[in-house]
């Protein structure tokens, strides 16, 4: 049997080996990340069928939980690590050709560290370890946002760093308060003991934890850094930040709310926050002229929708939320990758400068169009079943509150459709009719893009491929007693 520890240990070790390899052979740096992430993808896929039956608990150091640091490879953890490894692998293939300037070996090292941190967050069963892996993720993303060293990148990285550092400090205070009350850092152990604590003494740590994690998850009103950071980073990094980093933050929020605190009364508030995030994100995206900024705001909107779906807290709702999360990861990564080469060819981020790209870069534009349609939720792409599940879950609760909110969410989707269709129109139907020379993106960029397109189509036509995994992931998040029992025995 494969040990889930390898999912963290191998990329971490290889990340720090990159500068050593680069001493002897400069190009070695860029081939190590695909190797490490390919390994992670294989291990995750091998683990996936096993953890659907029984979650694998790894105790480090030979002690039993709650006295050791443990990893919990349940359906949620392995589902997320599969997604992280898959998208990370595709984006690292894209980066082979895309990242040419600057200290490339540092880029690849930080990139691998970022994904190691993300994998660690989703697999760990210890709340302080969650903080440490979160910091690995955050620090490497601050540095990567500033990778191009241009004006915009540095300014956004400074903004991101200040807000992120304050968020992490709040998170750490929350962890300290929990430790002071319960004398343990194991998430399952805290969850077990929390029933005996008074609600008032739990309120402050919960608010601190959710605020701290909410900065990284970009929940309104903690998301001021996101549009700057995602639009000024190199496009391959934007794809990872939008596709993975904020989803991991959202996972941590869900884990804290569902598993640790089991806070049923807090969910209505989270649903409201989700819809607010959705509407703010979509409305800001509608008014943008810069295409990467538009995509960044659209990420805020999608995060809001996922948060809303998770906060419905029925089996359908959480499944729909996780499905939408998979959709957003695949589609938004595809959109950023496609936009990366369009910007590279035109040299401008303005939407109006993309006129006539449909003839110059037909394959890239096709990929962009499919990503956009999938994000809006058109059949037969993956966005349709996920949004359909969310609407169905909200209506199935039969509560006026959720029905009103899902109406607002659908209104947000209409706005989303409007600005994505506008870009697609600019790509294909604007500009001069003459046929300019074709200059397609290189093969190393087209392979990951069309792998994503294939995944979006296949899962969209045949959603049964993923729904089993999503169902058991949803039940892991909702049944905290099962989680506690499986960890503590």
């Amino acid at each position, binding site marked *: 049997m494969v040990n889930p520890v390898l999912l963290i240990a191998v990329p971490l070790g290889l990340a720090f080996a990159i500068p050593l390899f680069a001493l002897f052979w400069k190009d070695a740096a860029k081939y190590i990340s695909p190797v490490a992430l390919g390994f992670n993808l294989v291990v995750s896929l091998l683990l996936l069928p096993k953890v659907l039956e029984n979650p694998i608990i790894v105790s480090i150091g030979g002690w039993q939980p709650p006295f050791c640091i443990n990893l919990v490879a349940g359906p949620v953890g392995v589902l997320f690590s599969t997604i992280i490894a898959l998208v990370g692998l595709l984006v690292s293939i894209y980066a082979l050709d895309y990242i040419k300037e600057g200290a490339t070996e540092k880029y690849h090292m930080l990139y691998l560290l970022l994904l190691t941190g993300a994998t660690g967050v989703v697999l760990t069963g210890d709340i*302080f370890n969650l903080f*440490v892996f979160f*910091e690995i993720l955050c*620090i490497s993303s*601050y*540095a990567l946002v*500033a990778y191009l*060293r*241009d*004006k*915009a990148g*540095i*300014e*956004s*990285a*400074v*903004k991101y*760093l*200040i807000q992120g*550092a*304050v968020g*992490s*400090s709040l998170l*750490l*205070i929350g*962890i*300290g308060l929990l*430790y*002071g009350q319960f*004398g343990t*850092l194991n998430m399952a152990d805290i969850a077990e003991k929390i029933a005996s604590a008074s609600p008032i003494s739990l309120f402050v740590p919960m608010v601190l934890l959710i605020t701290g994690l909410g900065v990284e998850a970009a929940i309104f009103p903690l998301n001021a850094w996101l*549009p*700057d950071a995602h639009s*000024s980073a190199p496009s391959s990094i934007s794809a990872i930040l939008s596709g993975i980093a904020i989803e991991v933050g959202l996972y941590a929020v869900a884990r804290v709310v569902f598993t640790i605190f089991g806070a049923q009364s807090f969910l209505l508030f989270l649903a409201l926050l989700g819809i607010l995030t959705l509407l703010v994100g979509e409305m*800001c995206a509608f008014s943008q002229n810069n295409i990467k900024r538009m995509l960044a705001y659209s990420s805020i909107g999608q995060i809001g929708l996922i948060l809303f779906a998770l906060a419905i807290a029925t089996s359908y709702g959480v499944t729909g939320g996780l499905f939408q999360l998979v959709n957003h990861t695949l589609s938004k990564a595809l959109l950023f990758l496609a936009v990366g080469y369009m910007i590279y060819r035109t040299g401008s981020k303005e939407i109006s400068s993309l006129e006539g790209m449909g003839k110059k870069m037909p394959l890239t534009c096709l990929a962009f169009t499919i990503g956009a349609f999938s994000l809006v939720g058109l059949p037969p792409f993956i966005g349709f079943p996920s949004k359909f599940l969310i609407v169905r879950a909200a209506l199935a609760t039969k509560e006026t509150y959720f029905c009103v909110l899902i109406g607002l969410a659908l209104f947000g989707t209409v706005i989303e459709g409007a600005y994505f269709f506008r870009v697609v129109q600019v790509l294909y139907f604007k500009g001069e009719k003459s046929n300019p020379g074709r200059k397609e993106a290189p093969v190393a960029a087209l392979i990951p893009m069309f792998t994503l397109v294939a995944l979006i189509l296949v899962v969209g036509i045949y959603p049964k491929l993923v729904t089993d995994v999503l169902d058991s992931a949803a039940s892991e998040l909702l049944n905290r007693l099962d989680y506690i029992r499986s960890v503590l025995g």
Partner: protein
Amino acid sequence: MSFLNNYAYYIGAFGLIFIGLYIILVKHNLIKVIVGLGILDTGVNLFLISVGYITKGTAPIFSRPGIYSERMVDPVPQALVLTAIVIGVAVLALALSLAIRLYQHYGTLNLRKIREQKW
């Protein structure tokens, strides 16, 4: 005065945390904001230490004779703080190097004058 005696560390820790937050929110100079981040980090670390501290406690080493477990301080928060200090150093170092770059681009560290990115 017994209240002050019992909770002196907590008062100090949260005092530092609020001073740090105040500096980050109010000051315009990036270096001062980074100093604020440092103070905030210190406050959080002091808070974590005081969670496990016992007045006049000793190190938890069982092999020494004449020491009882009631008198030992909790070692876990100290291990946490060691990790948190390292993370804080990394963040501050990165922030300072970004500040150098920012100064090279804009010729100022005043955050109110650096407003290229807008909603």
